[in-house]
């Protein structure tokens, strides 16, 4: 583990920085590779990125429903604030998460992610395929997301991009689980503290929350992202 983690970081950072330049990367969330049957959820996410170019605010609202014991489908409406400070719809997205292995059965747990996103006002598309992993180390968990993104459309250049996300979490108590998150994409490397927690109610109802503060390390004098999310499962 002592060698594995730094080596993984170096390899991923070098691979991603060697690619073409970034255009629209946003810190979002690190996905876990797990799905539960009967899973239904509403989710709200917010990311606010402040850098030398100003503030980019993004919100996502979604509804997810398990299609089977191992697959969940989620639909998103993405909103953002434009340069005139008006908040409006930016796009919509469909996402499938697929739990590939039983939790704890193998050395690590594996899942897959597929996303298709379309911009609301332009004919621009983005398709993503990703591999999700999670490995337990006692009360710690290491979660990684390797993503391959293809963009095409009328205002974007047709290109492949790579993304890497990682979370190292300490499962302290259900309500508060501190973590460190790391994000790398073309032209972006960010790291920072994050917290997540879960509060259970009757039956299957539960509320999950996440909060993270990611500092960009890619050369800008100022590049901070605050991200938060609330997820209600029922």
């Amino acid at each position, binding site marked *: 583990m002592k060698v594995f983690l730094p080596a993984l970081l170096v390899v991923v950072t070098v691979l991603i920085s060697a690619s073409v330049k970034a255009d629209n990367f946003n810190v979002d969330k690190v996905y876990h590779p*797990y799905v*539960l*049957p*009967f899973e239904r959820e509403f989710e709200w996410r917010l990311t606010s990125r402040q850098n030398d170019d100003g503030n980019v605010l993004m919100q996502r609202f979604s509804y997810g429903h398990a299609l089977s*014991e191992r697959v969940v489908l989620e639909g998103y409406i993405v909103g953002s604030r434009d340069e005139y400070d008006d908040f409006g719809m930016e796009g919509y997205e469909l996402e499938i998460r697929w739990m590939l292995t*039983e*939790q*704890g*059965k193998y050395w690590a747990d594996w899942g897959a992610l597929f996303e298709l996103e379309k911009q609301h006002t332009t004919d621009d598309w983005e398709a993503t395929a990703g591999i999700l992993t999670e490995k*337990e180390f*006692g009360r710690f*968990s290491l979660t990684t997301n390797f993503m391959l993104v293809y963009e095409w459309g009328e205002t974007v250049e047709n290109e492949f991009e790579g993304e890497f996300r990682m979370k190292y979490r300490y*499962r302290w*108590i*259900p309500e508060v689980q501190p973590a460190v998150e790391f994000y790398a994409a073309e032209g972006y490397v960010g790291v920072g503290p994050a917290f997540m927690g879960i509060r*259970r109610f009757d*039956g*299957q109802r539960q509320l999950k929350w996440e909060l993270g503060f990611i500092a960009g390390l890619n050369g800008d004098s100022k590049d901070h992202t605050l991200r938060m999310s609330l997820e209600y499962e029922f």
Partner: protein
Amino acid sequence: MLSVPYRTLIALSFISLQAKAAMPEAIVEIKNHLFSPQEVIIPANKKVRLVFINHDATPEEIDSFDLNREKVIFGNSKGTIYVGPLPPGTYRFFGEYHPNTAVGVVRVVRPEALPDAD
């Protein structure tokens, strides 16, 4: 002091522990929204297969923050939860649909402390 049926149930769980040398297995049955046995004893530092057999017609969701596991067991069905390797200790689990009745613990002990280890 444990009652005789309770001790019997714990003892039964040891029998299944000997199952496969590669991965010990313990069986927990769900009946009338109760786990049986309610206490499962497994060896430390080994991966163990916990097989839940649900005799109820309704599903149960096994949940444990201690074990970091969540798994739905459908009605009249069975499902497996893989745990460990774990250090000695007590790890609680419960059924999300019947949290007041469906409660249990996994007690992880050193292999030499297992009751059938002579």
